């Protein structure tokens, strides 16, 4: 079995993304780790059921020669969702940065709590 195929790479990337989410206090790094997480899942799907000797189902080929096209179709949706989520995340972050002046999760939490206390 090939040790460097889509699935193993995607699992390694998933762990990299999880590490970034767990260990980094910078909000931008968390957003980037989230994008890495989503990208890893997309890679997992795209390389599903892939076989070197078969062809994509375009044109006139017999069904035994076709490769499963469903994961790619699903991942078009997933990529779009990932992009829109990243856009909303970054918009929220930009507004938060303009208001609080920090990119640190904990400092932002403290500043929000102080704002709430001051009414």
């Amino acid at each position, binding site marked *: 079995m090939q040790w460097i195929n889509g699935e193993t790479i995607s699992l390694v990337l998933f762990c990299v993304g999880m590490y970034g989410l767990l260990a980094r206090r910078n909000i931008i790094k968390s957003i980037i780790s989230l994008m890495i997480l*989503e990208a*890893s899942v997309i890679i997992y799907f795209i390389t599903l059921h892939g076989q070197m000797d078969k062809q994509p189902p375009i044109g006139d080929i017999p069904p035994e020669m076709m490769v499963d096209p469903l994961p790619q179709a*699903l991942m078009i949706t997933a990529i779009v969702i990932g992009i829109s989520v990243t856009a909303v*995340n970054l918009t929220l972050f930009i507004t938060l940065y303009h208001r609080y002046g920090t990119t640190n999760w*904990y400092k932002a*939490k403290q500043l*929000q709590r102080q*704002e709430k206390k001051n009414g």
Partner: protein
Amino acid sequence: MVSLSLFVLVPLFAAVFIYLLPEKIVRVVGLFVQAALFAASLILFVAVQAQGYIEESLGGWVVFSGITLGVDLLSAIMLVMTTGLFFLFLLYNASAPYVRNLFLTLFLILQCLLSGIFISTDLFNVYVLIEVGTIVVTLLILFKQSKRILYDGLIYLMINIVSMSFFLLGLGMLYRLVGVLDFATIGERAAQLESQQLILPCALMLTAACLKAAAFPVFSWLPKAHGTPGAPSVVSAVLSGLYVKSGIYLILRLQGIFAEVFDLRPFFLGLGLVTAFAGIILALSQRDIKRILAYSTVSQMGLILLGLGQGTPHAYHGALYHVINHALFKSLLFLVAGLIIEVYGTRDLHRIRGVARKMPLPAITAIVAMLGVTGAPFFNGSLSKYLIESDLQGSLFAYGLIAINFGTVLYFLRFLSMFKGAASQETQEKIPLNRQAVLVVFAMLCLGGGFFGSFFMDWIFGVDIAFPLPVALEKGTIYLATVAAGIVLHRVLDRPLTRLTHRLQLEPGFNEMCLAILVLFAVQVFYLNGFAF
């Protein structure tokens, strides 16, 4: 016969049109559309009771190669709940100043997504709808004061997207093994595989579902999202009443898929108990009235998981009935809390007094809701709690349930302290007629769900539940004893208890929440290793 895709398409198109219409008629249009949807969902419910399972394949494709919408009894109940609650909320909000094109658009889109979640039959559809729903909910909870609660909104969005990425990875692994995406076929094919291969997909997907349903280590996003100052009270009510139930729905479907491979019931039994206690402990230390209600939601979700984790028909129906009841009384409580915040201008429990004299009707309906939540006899909560505990007699869990009821009484007594006393200005507040009507409707449903409980169980679920008189009397005495003990404890120990629970209160940051997700995932992997069939 109602076409299923209408439940998704009609709110969506209505939302888009409403954004373009002039402001004067948008509310009326929204109400009409919603009333039509509610009527359609009732027709569908009756049809599903007659036929059992209604299916519609979009585009006319064969069932598992296209997108299929399917409605069984559970989905029909959730659909009726969704359209009914949205109708009541739109009616409640008909006179609010912020209800203009943008709010109605987002609100109706949320409804379209929720209806879609409940009538989809394949997992990827559910994933897409939940993700878009997360974005829409983030926009809605930041609606009123969008600059002050950015931290809460950002954390809510990111945690939910992390959990759905777990879900998608699990879905990918499952698809690699079975090759199909819809519930029924996955269930059949999964039963033929070795359970060893299915541990990772099941654990990944179940972690995501547990996060959406606010289970123990991963519920911290819920008080932030449901209790934000920027969320209109209707939005908090929708979130606590309906959106968190989509997590329960997802858990039910996953349990159905993996029913013959893993025995998940002991896991949910333990998880439900711990979640219920965690919600109670954290609710006891709050001063913000919306946060008390949000932690109460966590605790009640634990109770529902307890019901689902037993596997007996009584407990299952009890849990589903509690889903409906909780939507009713928690929505009512959030609406009243929103009114109180509007009138008094503060969210602090200690500064609000005299609600009963200032706003008598909301106070009465809120007390009805609290009686419902704590399980007073003749109210709807008592029937669902009785069903959940009916198969647990004598075991350790029965005492756990009594403790949970006691805890619920305790924090609602704190909530109740707002109603006593005299307000600073004695003039009664004028509440618009539509809001009064909606509050009364909710209160009537809470009361009617208890009085006519057997009738409702028969009509909704088709089961025959008897609530014999000696059992009712016994439950009534236990309830009165619990309330008495709660009042005594409240008088004596309120301040020390608040300080104690305040020390236990954790406000996790983003990294800690991700760690909690990972811990839950690890626990599930260990559990599934040992509890395969």
